[in-house]
């Protein structure tokens, strides 16, 4: 096993070097091990990728028999299963359905305009209800039991992403009285409420990107039965023979996450610290990172079919819909610019894989 010698950088008498095996050295001082990798130029990463390279990912959709739509995303050692179940929300006669009509009043409120909080209860949600489950034995770091801080933060981030991107067209979730092919203003009797459950099978860093990609892929591949109001039984019934897809946005938004690791750099004589951007961090890099930057962006690749990878991404217009940067103080604002370029290239690969998967539905 290659030994990494840990040399004290100065001192008059050269003390005996301490030699450790690589894995021992990584365990003893993880920060130094990562810095040693990032310091040689071109900077390398312990997992063998270069800093701006993200992990290759595989996508399989519709492999679950009971979900209306499902997707399995595996990116490196992070594996996520997303299942979508539609359930019927019957509007009580007196109730006013308009509160479900728009992605709620204030931009990121997870709650609809009226009655956002039941008396004393936590908040009631909107029509689309995403949740993340991490206590499935997916990693040693995450204990079993009710959702902890990370799972709750992820659930809330996914809920905010659904609200911000307005991915699902709410009017495709309406349930009318009788056959609704006449588009006249039929009386709305109910709504489809989508339960999006994301289960993490294996956790090795950057679960937000994998979870959001799984949600988008699952929504794209899901089919809801045609539902209509039955006057006799005063209930909503579904037709087992007629299924229709959920109508989504054309330009699909994707998230790209970066970790910033402080690296000592003697810029201009002053030994300061510069943050190096690592694309798609794994759990080891996430632990050592001082900052996490997530960008939600849409890149309309236009109708150019064919292989996306050669497209020169420079001329594509990337619109940013969300930026979240937390922790640390080393990020230069200009660094965000080249993050959007990386986000565009990743979006292209996402769309390419999704298109390939749609052509060969299960």
């Amino acid at each position, binding site marked *: 096993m290659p030994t990494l010698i840990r040399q004290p950088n100065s001192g008059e008498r050269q003390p005996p070097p301490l030699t450790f095996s690589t894995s021992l050295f990584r365990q003893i001082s993880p920060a130094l091990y990562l810095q040693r990798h990032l310091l040689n130029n071109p900077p390398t990463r312990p997992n063998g990728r270069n800093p701006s390279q993200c992990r*290759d990912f*595989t996508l*399989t959709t*519709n*492999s*679950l*028999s*009971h*979900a209306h739509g*499902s997707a*399995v995303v*595996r990116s*490196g*050692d992070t*594996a996520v299963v997303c*299942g979508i*179940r*539609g*359930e*019927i*929300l*019957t509007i009580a006669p007196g109730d006013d359905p308009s509160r*479900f009509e728009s992605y709620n009043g204030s931009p990121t409120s*997870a709650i*609809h305009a009226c009655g956002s909080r*039941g008396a004393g*209860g*936590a908040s*009631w*949600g*909107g*029509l689309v*209800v995403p*949740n993340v*489950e991490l206590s*499935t*034995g*997916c990693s*040693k770091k995450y204990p*079993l039991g009710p*959702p902890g801080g990370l*799972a*709750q933060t992820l*659930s*809330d981030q996914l809920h905010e992403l659904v609200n911000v991107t307005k991915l699902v067209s709410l009017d495709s979730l309406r349930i009318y009285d009788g056959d609704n092919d006449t588009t006249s203003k039929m009386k709305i009797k109910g709504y489809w*409420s989508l*339960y999006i*459950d994301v*289960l993490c*099978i*294996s*956790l*090795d860093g950057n679960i937000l990107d994998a979870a959001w990609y799984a949600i988008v892929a699952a929504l794209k591949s899901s089919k809801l*039965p045609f539902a209509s109001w039955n006057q*006799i039984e005063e*209930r909503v*019934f*579904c037709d*087992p023979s007629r299924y229709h897809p959920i109508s989504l946005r054309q330009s699909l938004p994707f998230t790209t996450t970066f970790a910033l690791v402080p690296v000592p750099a003697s810029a201009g004589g002053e030994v300061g610290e510069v943050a190096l951007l690592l694309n798609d961090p794994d*759990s080891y890099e996430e632990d050592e990172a001082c900052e996490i930057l997530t960008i939600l962006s849409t890149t309309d690749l236009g109708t150019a079919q064919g292989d996306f990878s050669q497209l020169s991404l420079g001329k594509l217009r990337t619109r940013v819909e969300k930026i979240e940067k937390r922790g640390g103080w080393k990020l230069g604002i200009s660094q965000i610019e080249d993050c959007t370029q990386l986000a565009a290239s990743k979006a292209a690969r996402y769309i390419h894989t999704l298109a390939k998967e749609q052509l060969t539905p299960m």
Partner: protein
Amino acid sequence: MAAKAPDRRRNNPPSHGTTPPVFLSSASSGAVKPKQSSRPPNEIRKIFLRTGLISSVTGSSFLEIAPLKLSISVLGPRPLPRTSSTPFAAQAILTTEVKFAPFASTVRRGYVRDSSERDLGSRLYQALVGAIRRELYPKSRIEVVVTILDSEDEGDDVNTVYMEEGKTTVETKFWDAGRSERALGVVLAGCITAASAALADAGIEMFDLVSGGVATSFVDEVGLKGKGVGDAVSNKLYVRDPAIAPPEGKVPLATCVLGYMAARDEISELWISGKVGTKNGTAEMDELVDEAIAAARSARGVLNEAAKERVQFIVDKTGTTEPLKEESTDVQMTG
């Protein structure tokens, strides 16, 4: 799902609750017949089993038997929680958790464990606890976590309503007494087999691998009328690894699920439900148990192959000189 109290730690559905979709099929098409499985009664279904897919835990396995898909992860000998008041544990403490994914069965299950999941967990514990050499790992705990991604359609026809000229009748054609036991039995057998594979992958020493076996005894529908319970019923049909739909014109009598250590020929866990006659002592029960053991023995073959396959893969790899870069072994989930 009725509007029960909102879960403080998760996103909640709209306030007045949602109900699962109810399907209205016109009477003319009649109840769609579940397709009969064409395999002979003494043959079990094809098992797809692979180990070592999750790198961040000590041992893991993925099992697929037709509709049933489950993923198991074993968190190897871990220190006991510091503040636990348990006295000095001379041998490892095993804990097993079984959880259905919300989208795993026809009726959406919540995130909080219900009684059937707790029951499966304790039965899995019984099956595994005897097989692990726990005295080798003092003062530690071994956690086996089972996540069921897709399961039998044990309730499929429950929510289908049949409309007959204006009168809707909710008639469940295929609900019979043993249905949920058969479904949970198949799930438990899958859990036992996959858990042993995961424990072997984790490198935890075991006396023997435990494989799960299920068998159900059926009897002719017509023959049953007029006979009291316990009368000797002649033409009994034993089906190993039963599918959810009973064979043509048959009614299920009893189901037996067991965890079986083939090399030691020992049963570590046995669960029989249904009607078993005691007219001539335990003969009827022994027949059923022998069928289940046969099912478990054939599952054991697949289990041995799966356990060896991963180690063979490593042996081939470490045989070569260059440092091994474990490429991501992806999971092909057949629909």
